């Protein structure tokens, strides 16, 4: 072991004490900054506040044709009651669409390359004229209308959305339901290559939903192909979805490929998964709580406080008659 003799280190070479401390301080500052940045990046990666601003390139071919059919909008979009429609950005960046992601803020990102052409919709079951429609033919069945509807999610948030579509009734009329047809069942596309989260087992796939015949034929029940006068972006259920404004959002099935008319009450996905939480009817009803949250009020996206939830989401005048004599507590 070499022991240096004292004279080998000249006093001038000894690091000045203040410099020694400065360097230590500098290194510590650098370590602090580096770890804090790493933590910051980790937070950013794990917690995505959304709003990556997915600029929506509407589905290629028929975007224009849809826009052409739109009535000219003069005074913006609002419900008959005067509730203003939510921003396009909110509607297209906050979505429940488990086929892409269970994170509402992530769906837009994961779905942005979803290809929706060519697309066919098979209408089958108890009908006189079963038929597989090419989407563009289907959209010609009836003129597309702007319909500004309240949309109420079972998770107690809501929006006002200007849909573009036509009543489901028009499609059903075109295939001539048999008198034995009592219910309608709808299926979402099953294609894990295009809907990557279908590889996970969060839900049994494909997603399916159902309506009673009179609900399906109700003039409020809409087949929507667009919103805000433009083609539906993927995250909102492109290219064709159902909109049933007086029911919780999960009834309004997205990216429909098959519609089947039946004589028995069809199964529905959420009812299969958790029958005590999600019933077949799923009408918006402030007095029937979901087991895990109250349905008495809701957060309207874009508003600070909460609103009282309205019976049938405010459409009681039009639809309450469908359920007269029914106990809505047991038929939730």
């Amino acid at each position, binding site marked *: 072991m070499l022991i240096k003799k004292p004279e080998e280190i000249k006093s001038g070479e000894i690091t000045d004490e203040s410099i020694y401390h400065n360097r230590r301080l500098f290194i510590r500052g650098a370590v602090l900054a580096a*770890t804090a940045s790493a933590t*910051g990046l980790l937070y950013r990666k794990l917690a995505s506040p959304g709003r990556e601003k997915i600029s929506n390139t509407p589905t290629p071919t028929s975007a224009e044709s849809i826009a052409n059919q739109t009535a000219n909008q003069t005074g913006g979009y609002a419900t008959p009651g005067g509730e203003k429609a939510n921003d396009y950005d909110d509607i297209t960046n906050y979505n429940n669409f488990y086929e892409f992601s269970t994170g509402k803020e992530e769906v837009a990102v994961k779905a942005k390359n979803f290809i929706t052409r060519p697309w066919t919709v098979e209408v089958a079951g108890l009908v006189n004229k079963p038929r597989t429609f090419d989407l563009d033919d289907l959209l010609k069945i009836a003129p597309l209308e702007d319909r500004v509807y309240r949309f109420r999610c079972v*998770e107690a*948030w809501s929006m006002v959305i200007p849909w573009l579509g036509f009543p489901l009734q028009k499609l059903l009329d075109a295939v001539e339901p048999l008198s034995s047809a009592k219910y309608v069942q709808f299926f979402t596309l099953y294609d894990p290559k295009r809907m990557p989260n279908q590889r996970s087992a969060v839900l049994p796939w494909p997603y399916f939903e159902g309506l009673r015949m009179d609900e399906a034929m109700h003039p409020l029940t809409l087949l929507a192909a667009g919103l805000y006068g433009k083609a539906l972006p993927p995250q909102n259920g492109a290219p064709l979805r159902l909109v049933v404004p007086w029911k919780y959002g999960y009834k309004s099935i997205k990216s429909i490929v098959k519609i089947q008319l039946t004589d028995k009450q069809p199964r529905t996905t959420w009812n299969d998964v958790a029958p005590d939480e999600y019933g077949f009817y799923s009408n918006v009803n402030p007095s029937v709580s979901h*087991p*895990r949250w*109250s349905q008495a009020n809701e*957060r309207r996206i874009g508003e600070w406080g909460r609103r009282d939830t309205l019976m049938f989401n405010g459409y009681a005048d039009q639809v309450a008659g469908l359920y007269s004599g029914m106990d809505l507590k047991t038929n939730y």
Partner: protein
Amino acid sequence: MDIKFAKQIVFINSVVPIALLGWDAYHHRLGANPQEYVLHTTGTLTLVFLTLSLAVTPLRIALKLPWMIHLRRMFGLFAFFHAATHMLAYVWFDKSFKLTAIVKDTFDRPFIFLGMFAFIILIPLAVTSTNGMVRRLGGQNWNRLHKLAYVAAISGVLHYYLLVKADTRIPVTFGIVLGILLSYRLIKRYFPRLIQSTRS
């Protein structure tokens, strides 16, 4: 190891997430449902810091770094801070400070009850976190009281698990990590020989 510096690093890093949350809120970058975003993020952060505080003891023994014990209180207090923020977000954003609605929610819904329960447990732990309180209670009593952190963590993870609709991956992950940390303690207690250098 310079404990003071270690504490500084941990403190600064622990502040980063809530600071970024505040920054995003200030710039209106919390997405379409900012109230829900704050609620969920603070809830998750509570569980993160509770887990960290429970990881200190096993880690310091496994890694033979006895000084790590000095970080535990800070993790615990950060857990309490986030839990309090989470609670404030809930009573404010979700319940508009309506006491009757909060009480009804608590007794109607098991997941709310578990969350409330976990938060109430954390209060005495935070209050007795000072050196003075450790002295006043006596080490053994203090240790016994602070075992409640296990109960709070279990309730907190169950609270999260019962909340989600279908995608249980994150709460289940918290549950697995917590399970490992708690089984470590069971093993240490009943089969101490399986864990070496317990004296460190």
